[in-house]
């Protein structure tokens, strides 16, 4: 067989094999998710002000409906993980699920999705955040980002973004040490799939507190 024919035969084999797999379901390897998520768990730097969650990113905008679950299925493992409106859930690090090569799928079929780890700032029950603590939390998040991604070393903490579930719930104000308050503007954050958000950028030597009117879905660090 001439080389060209051999090459064509090989490509034909490749395409034929690919067609055979076209019926694959939308399920993700637990192992792939595990290796992405365990990095934070093994990270030895300060992280007490942070939370690490697995985030489902559906290919179609707005596919995250109420009640959608992320199902972890293995030979001896069956867990239904509730997703928040941002598609996030606490990821269980389980050796049994890893060894069984378990899969992750959505409770509603037909939704193509990807997964990613998301590190955010831990919310407080009272909704009041010291500016110094927000700075420390952002610094912790930046240190972790630099740990996993060398290209982040040139970036700096610029602020934080409070993401809310509904426009009516969105809002926060800055309390300065002299007792004055400033209402922080609400914006639709495209980066958060249209969820309303309040961004607060760190000032020079500003001290005080940021108080939210309602519990945010997430508090994300802003790096620039």
């Amino acid at each position, binding site marked *: 067989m001439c080389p060209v024919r051999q090459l064509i035969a090989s490509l034909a084999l490749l395409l034929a094999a690919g067609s055979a797999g076209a019926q694959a379901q939308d399920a993700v390897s637990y192992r792939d998710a595990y*290796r992405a998520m365990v990095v934070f768990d093994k990270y030895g730097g300060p992280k007490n002000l942070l939370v690490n969650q697995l985030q489902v990113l559906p290919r179609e905008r707005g596919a995250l409906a109420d009640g959608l679950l992320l199902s972890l299925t293995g030979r001896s493992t069956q867990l239904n993980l509730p997703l928040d409106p941002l598609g996030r859930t606490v990821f269980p690090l389980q050796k049994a699920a890893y060894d069984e*090569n378990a899969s992750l799928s959505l409770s509603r079929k037909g939704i193509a999705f990807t997964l990613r780890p998301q590190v955010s700032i831990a919310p407080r029950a009272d909704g009041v955040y010291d500016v110094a603590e927000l700075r420390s939390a952002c610094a912790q998040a930046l240190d972790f980002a630099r740990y996993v991604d060398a290209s982040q070393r040139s970036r700096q903490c610029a602020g934080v973004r409070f993401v809310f579930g509904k426009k009516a719930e969105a809002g926060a104000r800055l309390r300065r040490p002299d007792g004055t308050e400033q209402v922080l503007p609400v914006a639709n954050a495209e980066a958060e799939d249209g969820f309303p958000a309040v961004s607060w950028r760190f000032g020079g030597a500003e001290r005080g507190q940021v108080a939210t009117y309602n519990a945010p879905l997430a508090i994300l660090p802003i790096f620039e």
Partner: protein
Amino acid sequence: MNKLLFLVLGTGALAGSLAGGTARAQTPAVNPMPDGSRDMYVGLGAQSAPRYEGSGSRKVSALPVLQVEWSNGIFISGMSAGMHLSGSPTVEYGPLLAVQPGRDESGTSVEVGGVGMNGLIGPAAGEKAMFMTGRLGGMDEIGTRLQFGGFYNVYLDPQWRLSSSLLVGAGRDRDGARLELNVQRLALAAGSHHRVSLTAGVGLVNRQYNETYFGVTAAEAMRSRFGPWQPGGGLQDVHASVRWNWVLSPSWMLTSNLQAKRLLGDASHSPLTQRPTNLTVSTAFAYRF
């Protein structure tokens, strides 16, 4: 004679492993996992490749797939094995062992012992007749060699990796050395069914390496139709490859690779080199255990 080849997977979610040549040392990305666990791919496919480096003829052969990683950092990846020693997500380094396939008069490699063999799809009748005359007739047979060395990889960011490996022990007198330098665009996105990784790089070898695989000794020149050729060391090749992994399910993957390689310097001018630029294409199904 059967030839054992292995295909190396690019399987990472945060960072995929590379995939250059089928027989060269490969280092999969660090795969964090629970203590005592492992991640293993086993599969079978087909490959169309030059009969030997620089050959103008090709052959299609069966292609076993093997990649295993253990929680202690030890890995087997195709025909290489090593150990990840770095604790940093942005740097990988460690020792490396690799099998360098041999070469006989027909150009096919000497069997690698100790590992399961698979049947080959033999050359077509006309092509076989050509090989009966021996394209490398009169040339010394080169034995399979176990090479040892190390690897060092640096991630510029989670998508881009600079990788290097140095292996010694190849060649007629086991004193051949090869340094490979690559830049890689790795696949990302757990959940995506299709992952594409790109690799480009160069290979540098010492004189002993080139003399074995591209040189013609005086004795060989007497026995063969080739004139004597004493190549030196230096830049041996530039190569680029694209790997496409189709994740069919959490357990099954179709992995395919296309590599272009151009021999340079004395290797490209060797009388053994019929075609300095060659393509290798492969595809295989792999099951994840």
